[in-house]
């Protein structure tokens, strides 16, 4: 009796209050807005539209893995000692008891075996790092093959490229921190590469390691880079990368109602905020699941670093594999001594080749923009088949990278497929040099063939499989016309034609013009024109 009475009175009281004053949320929101003017930003961002496609979420995966790395990395810094001072291990892992090692290795083992949850966090950190760079790689491939780097997004491609390089640097510095045998071997290779640079190599090596390798400095120095400098630059670049995504608006695939001027999709609030928030936890969950069940980098097996032993199966983490592979593929003994200086071509050639490859990736948007001479903005993505030369160049690049990458595991390929390691190396050497050309031609022909097929379907519809006998006795297969939405997808793409060589204002044809014309011919000589409106109309008149 009393309780209902009090409930009813309070309800009545509240009803009366609502009329007078606003809710607590509104008060809080108003408080913040009056002091920060944030409502403009929320209004702008909250109604920001993002298109829906699975491949648009790969960058998000990279971002979320990075957040996981930051969280777990912070935990690890609480316990890690970035020191190379020698200590004697006295922890619980029996096969290392009484072994002398650096404080770094000792603390990494402590994290693994003595800190509660330490091993799980270490494994999450490492698996997340592998996923971080893998998702960046996949994201870059998506951007490349769909032409999302075209104007106005060339700068953002460059920022993304720098993020990729920074991620590699983060990965490698992290891999080197525990000061176990594997990481020490990795550093020794870097030391060797640095020392291979003529004249300055030895000096630079001494500068990096603070004396002769391994010295007592390197772990501390890498730690500063790994947890301070590189993450700071990474976070700043990620912020810039995302600001550009907002400024440029997201690209979208051709489709009904989608034009260069609009973005069709869902708003950030509430749809994408919820989806992205949930997706973060899914990514975190997948990483945590892998980390709970699968060992990564068992430093306790590798033992402390000692410059004398090198284990069989010593490899870098996957993302440095292509560089390791390049060193394995270069024929041995390429050295010359000129005036008392040794030139190690077996180190210099891989460094130069990798440098050229990386630079091509960084500069490709500029090159393509110059060749096409296209100054328009592009917000509609290409289907890879509709840019055959670009797709073929991408396929060649992927093949080259894959060959180098595979070479890093040449010894394991040899043991697991019962081959001789020399045969594996020679096969991959051939694949690295011939493979890109083969991949280029196959990809280009496949793209052109698919374009032809698209054209055929747009004009004549698809084969329905229904055979009809006409009154005159003629048999025909009925072609089903595609619906309008599908046809829109098939016919809307840019057509480029090779540039004509034109004389400049002074009436001269410059060498640059010639190069550009030749490049343009290379890009666009073989092409399939998109179906035009008049072709479609003509077709619909005389169709069966």
């Amino acid at each position, binding site marked *: 009796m009393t309780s209902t009475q009090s409930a009813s009175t309070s309800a009545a009281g509240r009803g009366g209050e609502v009329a007078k004053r606003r809710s607590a949320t509104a008060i809080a929101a108003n408080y913040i807005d009056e002091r920060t003017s944030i409502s403009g930003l929320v209004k702008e961002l909250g109604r920001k539209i993002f298109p829906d496609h699975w491949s648009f979420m790969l960058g998000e995966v990279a971002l979320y893995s990075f957040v996981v790395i930051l969280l777990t990395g912070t935990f690890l810094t609480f316990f890690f000692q970035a020191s190379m001072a020698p200590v004697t291990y006295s922890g619980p892992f029996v*096969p290392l008891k009484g072994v002398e090692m650096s404080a770094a290795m000792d603390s990494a083992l402590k994290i693994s075996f003595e800190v509660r949850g330490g091993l799980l966090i270490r494994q999450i950190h490492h698996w997340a790092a592998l996923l971080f760079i893998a998702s960046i790689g996949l994201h870059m491939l998506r951007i490349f093959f769909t032409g999302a780097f075209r104007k106005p997004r060339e700068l953002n491609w460059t920022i993304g490229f720098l993020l990729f390089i920074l991620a590699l640097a983060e990965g490698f510095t992290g891999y080197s921190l525990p000061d176990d045998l594997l990481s020490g071997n990795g550093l020794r290779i870097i030391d060797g590469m640095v020392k291979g640079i003529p004249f300055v190599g030895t000096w630079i090596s001494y500068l990096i390691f603070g004396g002769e390798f391994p010295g007592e400095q390197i772990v501390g120095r890498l730690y500063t880079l790994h947890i301070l400098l590189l993450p700071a630059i990474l976070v700043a670049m990620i912020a810039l990368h995302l600001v550009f995504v907002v400024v440029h608006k997201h690209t979208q695939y051709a489709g009904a109602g989608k034009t260069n001027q609009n973005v069709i999709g869902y708003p950030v609030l509430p749809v994408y905020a919820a989806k992205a928030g949930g997706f973060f936890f899914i990514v975190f969950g997948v990483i945590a699941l892998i980390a709970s069940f699968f060992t990564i980098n068992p430093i306790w097996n590798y033992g402390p670093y000692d410059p004398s*032993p090198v*284990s069989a199966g010593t490899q870098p983490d996957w993302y440095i594999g292509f560089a390791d592979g390049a060193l394995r593929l270069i024929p041995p003994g390429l050295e010359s001594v000129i005036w008392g200086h040794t030139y190690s071509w077996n180190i210099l050639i891989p460094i130069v080749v990798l440098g050229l490859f990386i630079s091509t990736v960084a500069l490709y948007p500029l090159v393509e923009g110059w060749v096409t001479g296209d100054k328009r903005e592009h917000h509609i993505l290409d289907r890879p088949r509709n840019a055959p030369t670009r797709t073929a160049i991408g396929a060649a690049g992927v093949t080259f990278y894959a060959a180098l990458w595979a070479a890093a595991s040449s010894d394991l390929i040899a043991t697991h497929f019962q081959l001789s390691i020399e045969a594996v190396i020679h096969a991959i050497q051939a694949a690295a040099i011939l493979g890109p050309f083969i991949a280029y031609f196959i990809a280009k022909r496949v793209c052109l063939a698919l374009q032809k097929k698209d054209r055929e379907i747009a004009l004549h519809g698809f084969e329905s499989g229904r055979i009809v006998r006409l009154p005159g006795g003629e048999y025909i297969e009925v072609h089903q016309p595609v619906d309008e939405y599908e046809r829109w997808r098939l016919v809307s793409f840019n057509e480029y034609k090779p540039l004509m060589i034109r004389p400049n204002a002074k009436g001269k044809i410059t060498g640059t013009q010639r190069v550009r014309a030749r490049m343009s011919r290379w890009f666009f000589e073989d092409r399939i024109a998109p179906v035009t409106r008049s072709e479609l109309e003509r077709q619909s008149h005389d169709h069966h």
Partner: protein
Amino acid sequence: MRKSTTSQPKVRKAGRRSPMASVALIMIGLFATGGVYALFTASASANTTAATSQLTTEGSKLFAANCATCHGLNLQGTKQGPSLIGVGAASVDFQVSTGRMPLAASGPQAEEKPAQFTTQQIQALYTYVAAQAPGPGIPSKQYLGGNGNAAKGAELFRINCAMCHNVAGAGGALTEGKFAPQLTGVSAKHIYEAMATGPQNMPVFNDQNITPTQKADIITYLKYLDKNPSPGGIDLGNLGPVSEGLFLWIFGLGAIVGVTIWLTAKAN
């Protein structure tokens, strides 16, 4: 007083036995025990010799039938196979009881397979080979128990073995199709024998190089790895970053891409 005391025992002694008696007794005793002992040991050694010679005979027959084609009737070796003079019992035991010998097919190196002979036949074979010339013998049981120092063993393993066999004994590649095999599940005796005799492409780690106690330590470490699964979970073959990267790309990124497709799928 003095005189009487000295004279009395002398009289008594002379009355009881001759001075040579004790010497004779000792002589008889010595001869008796010596003779019996000689008799005993003579018959024992005759027995073992008989057993050994029987094993040797059986071994020589097995050798002639199964090994001599390549290794020669007098172990001298042929173009097909090396000489076995001085390889010792350990080498024969390792090669035959791991099935590497007799060779199934000529290739870069002999591969492990089920043993082709019984334990007794193997014993006959190595006894026969060891009887021809001395060499490393079957390891003593005291080194095979896996009760040495695992930490010392791990360190020795990293320095001497890991460059071919990998730090966790997962094996590795050598030149021209040869390889260092995986060491998980290999018996302590075979590990010891391999170190002592250097089968296939493996170098010999003799007792001056790695002492028997150190060999026992290495065995202890390998047995520790066998008995204790990786503290981090499934070890992906202990192959290092290659299997980790492969796993991440296929299952990690594969799962994530699956989720992205699910999240952006249109509701039907």
